[in-house]
């Protein structure tokens, strides 16, 4: 996966294919080294495909694989044209 470093703690996953927005990952260089082996970054890319997503598909530094969306993921959807996904919340609601 192509990932660009923005600054010390920010990483961009550029748009490709049908991604609607970029991915934005908050991590140190060391964490990014570990994350690259993990399917959770692909989940950040997957979330970027959702209709109505605004800004970026984000991942916090404690990200790990979850059902559909990564745990440690943030995605804001346009109130009119966006979608809501139970996988974006998970089983342990609230």
């Amino acid at each position, binding site marked *: 996966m192509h990932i660009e470093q923005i600054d010390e703690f920010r990483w961009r996953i550029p748009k490709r294919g049908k991604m609607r927005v970029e991915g934005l990952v908050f991590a*140190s260089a060391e*964490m990014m080294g570990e994350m690259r082996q993990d399917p959770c970054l692909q989940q950040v890319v997957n979330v970027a*495909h959702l209709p109505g997503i605004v800004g970026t598909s984000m991942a916090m530094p*404690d990200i790990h694989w979850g059902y559909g969306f990564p745990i440690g993921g*943030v995605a804001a959807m346009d109130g009119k044209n966006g979608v809501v996904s*139970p996988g974006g919340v998970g089983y342990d609601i*609230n």
Partner: protein
Amino acid sequence: MRSGLSRAEIQPRVRDLVTRLYQNIPTGIGKGRTDLRLNRQELTQVLTQGAAWAVEKGMGYEEDVGFLEENGCIEGARPDLVSDRAYQRGRNQLGSLGSGNHFAEIQYVAEIYDEAAAAALGLFQDQVTLTIHSGSRGLGHQVCSDHLRVMVEAAARYGIELPDRQLCCAPLQSPEGRDYLGAMSAAANFAFANRQVMTHWARESFMQALSLGPSQAGLTVVYDVCHNIAKFETFEIEGRRRRLCVHRKGATRAYPPGHPQTPEAYREVGQPVLIPGDMGRYSYVLVGTERAYRETFGSTCHGAGRRLSRRQAKKQARGRKLLDELEREGVVVMAAGMATVAEEMPEAYKDVSAVVDVVEGAGISRQVAQLKPIGVIKG
């Protein structure tokens, strides 16, 4: 929650305190206390009112709810869209911790990074604090399962192309989307009420173990944040007001100083964010920032993140006396099952300090204080 007590004052009574907490707050996958069983009508009220329901029943103070995200109640909850099965699971579980990574922990303020912000949050060096981490229990789990089934079909019906079936979703303005949000909000309100009930029992535990009156034991809610939720929030971005549905999954809201939804007492420092670590090391109190508001829709991290899978952790714990190890480190642990302690042992988690260093370094949160565990109850 913060107390008026210092670490030295409770040190000789830590085991009593943990025992009281363990007796008063049910842990593990099963049911809650037999003295709190709800009929359908009562549970409907819980799902509608959230934390305020518990306060109305005498479990907590009115001022508590002002320190809960969304004042402990998501508007627009639709209990009528919560299935019978979910009701069944919720009836006997209000006021229970659950298993997995859920816990209640007695801590002390080990480090203060920002004196002014700590003072605004009422925190001081060596002060005893208590954190409860729990959610909507079986009821929320059932709501998620019920609606995932609906959403798989809905996504296909609305022609939404998905790279992964697990991302199944529906337009916010569709019946399926609205129904999920209504049911999910009801489950979120159950979680608010659940923590409010346990807050009350934690206060009682302090009074009982330390033979103190309510004002002396004085556990005050610092803040209560959600970790797993999707809700409508309004943002002012580049001069434009936008209403967005923010999904935070294993992420925490982190509103900046001055935000109208931040309690007045904290308005100058920003919304408190509580980041649990593991039960051996430390947790953090952060505050939200303007940069988070602009860049992450007011969001930040939520915890340490696992380093070992549950299975790997259990394997590494084999033959070890984890409770003794933790006690030597100064942490008294009581748990419903030893398997959970193994799964949740400190080495199973990444070092949470590395996580909070990143969010502070990136400017989306600011560190206020570090809390170290003294006593823990777990599922």
